[in-house]
């Protein structure tokens, strides 16, 4: 029911872009609902940035169409640009101007009345934690600070949709997490749709409720992280690794009989068991009953990482 109530924020129909004979985006049909935090995953050169540029009307599609909040991005780019904030991959500022001036410039270009520009600038800098750096020239900023400023840069126009192209590249791990949490927090508070492209799965996983994996111009899968995990690995979500003093056939048979065990691999001294839920107690019991001596038992839920890598291999 909630699906019907939600509006589509981004919709592409057979979107295709061909650059000098190579297809960057291939018949893409992408739907993103309002309020989603969409993680756009894919290796470098998969066509993520090209898709984003077409969403914003900065690049014209070769064929197909793209709509943002009901506006055709190719025909009404100004309408789309006025409701969307964009942080390019290689985001840059006027280095010899102050952070506040850089923001005020964007605010003015968005037709914000002069009397509220100043107020909005300081509010926005406050949100991203750069309030004390307002009068500092951007040339002195670190990469992480610039990314925060880039966030402020899109917030100042109070967009309905924020599009961030690789926002985390070049930042230290701690900074990445802070930035991601900030993005998630802002999106939640403002009920803003966010599209974030990345090639780092765990970053997307941290905040996104929808993930799309793009490879060679095509969207391979799209869905929530949990959904993707289930679909792609035949529901064997857990992997249990056990180490025994001696692995007998009796033990193997006993474990195989447990309901829910889907696969079993035997290596030199380990057993790898794939199952649909956490079966550690049952397995332990079965081993003990088969007179096995358990040395170690580890469980790992399938990280999306494996799924992601699997898609990469297939592509």
């Amino acid at each position, binding site marked *: 029911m909630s699906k019907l109530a939600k509006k589509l924020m981004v919709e592409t129909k057979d979107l295709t872009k061909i650059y000098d004979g190579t297809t960057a985006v291939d018949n893409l049909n992408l739907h993103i609902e309002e309020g989603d935090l969409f993680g756009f995953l894919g290796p470098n050169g998969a066509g993520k940035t090209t898709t984003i540029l077409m969403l914003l009307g900065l690049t014209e599609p070769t064929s197909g169409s793209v709509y943002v909040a009901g506006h055709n991005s190719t025909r009404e780019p100004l309408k789309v640009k006025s409701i969307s904030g964009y942080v390019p991959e290689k985001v840059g500022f*006027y280095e010899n101007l102050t952070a506040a001036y850089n923001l005020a410039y964007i605010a003015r*270009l968005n037709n914000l009345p002069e009397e509220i520009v100043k107020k909005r600038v300081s509010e926005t800098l406050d949100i991203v934690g750069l309030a004390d750096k307002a009068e500092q020239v951007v040339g002195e900023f670190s990469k992480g600070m610039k990314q925060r400023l880039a966030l402020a840069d899109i917030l100042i126009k109070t967009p309905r949709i924020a599009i961030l192209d690789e926002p985390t590249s070049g930042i230290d791990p701690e900074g990445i997490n802070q930035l991601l949490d900030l993005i998630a927090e802002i999106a939640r508070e403002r009920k803003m749709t966010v599209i974030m492209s990345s090639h780092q799965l765990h970053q997307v996983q941290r905040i996104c409720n929808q993930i799309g994996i793009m490879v060679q111009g095509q969207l391979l899968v799209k869905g929530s992280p949990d959904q993707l995990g289930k679909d792609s690995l035949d529901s064997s979500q857990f992997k249990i690794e056990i180490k025994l003093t001696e692995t007998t056939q009796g033990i193997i048979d006993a474990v195989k009989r447990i309901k829910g065990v889907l696969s079993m691999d035997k290596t030199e001294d380990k057993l790898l068991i794939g199952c649909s839920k956490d079966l550690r107690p049952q397995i332990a019991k079965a081993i003990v009953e088969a007179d096995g001596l358990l040395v170690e038992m580890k469980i790992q839920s399938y990280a999306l990482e494996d799924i992601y890598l699997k898609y990469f291999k297939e592509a």
Partner: protein
Amino acid sequence: MRGLLTVFNKELADYFISWRGIILFGVVLLTAVFAIYGPSGALQNIRAELSSTTQLGATQFVFLRLFTTSGQGSQSFLYFVSAFLIPVIGIALGFDAINGEKNNGTLSRLLSQPIYRDTVFNGKFFAGIATIAIMLTSIILLISGLGLNMIGVPPSSEEAFRLFLFIVLGTLYGAFWLGLSMLFSTFLQRVATSALAAIAVWIFFLVFMLMISTFIANTLVPIDQTSATQEIFRNIGIQITASRASPIFLFQEATTVILAPGARTASEILQLQQSAGAGLVSSTLPLGQSLLTIWPHLVTFIAITTMLFAISYYKFMREEIRST
């Protein structure tokens, strides 16, 4: 419209507060001071000329002579401005206009704002023209102020108008160099390359054009010491026509007419010589006639600049923002 004004204001502010602007204004200040006070500056000569009024038109347009008189062994203010100052300002303001923003990563951020794409381009171009106009006005005012103080002769209204015309003409000439360097900055990806390309064109017109026009003239009408007067005139005529391909020559010709109404340009003399019987009239050219003489120059500058602007505009509007 508001977007255009915003870009214009920002670019103008940028030109003035950046190191580039400070350096250019320093050059402007130096030019003014040296034009007047320099070791071989105009002042000495004007004083000498004023004391002997035999020279053609020396008593008229005294004030304008501040700008056109050259000191001993040096070039006049006019030559320096036309050959060096304005081209340098024009190139310096435009050489990184587009590719600088591209390399900085500010262009795609700018273009994702709800403004038309040409707003960025027009705003930069007009801000550049405004900067050139402001610099030229300040240099003229500076020299006028200093000169007024030294020679004590105020400019007549006609002289003031001629100086105003000079600023207009100089701004158009600067717009040409700005347009040229912006053209390179639109087509070339690297800032250093576009700066070099613009400088190369400048040096070509400054140094090689003279050689080329002499070569053309000597090939078409070879002359030596025994040549008839007519032959020599034809040779010079061709040389002048060929030189007019250079905007530097064109500007020099036009400004000479404006600022030195007593002087005759080489081509005028040539025309007079060729129309049989007519002698050289030793009087100054009225304002209306001066205007008429430079009209083609004015139109040419507007035409070339518009063309350069149009080409870069087209390229900039058609260009795709790529992912790399």
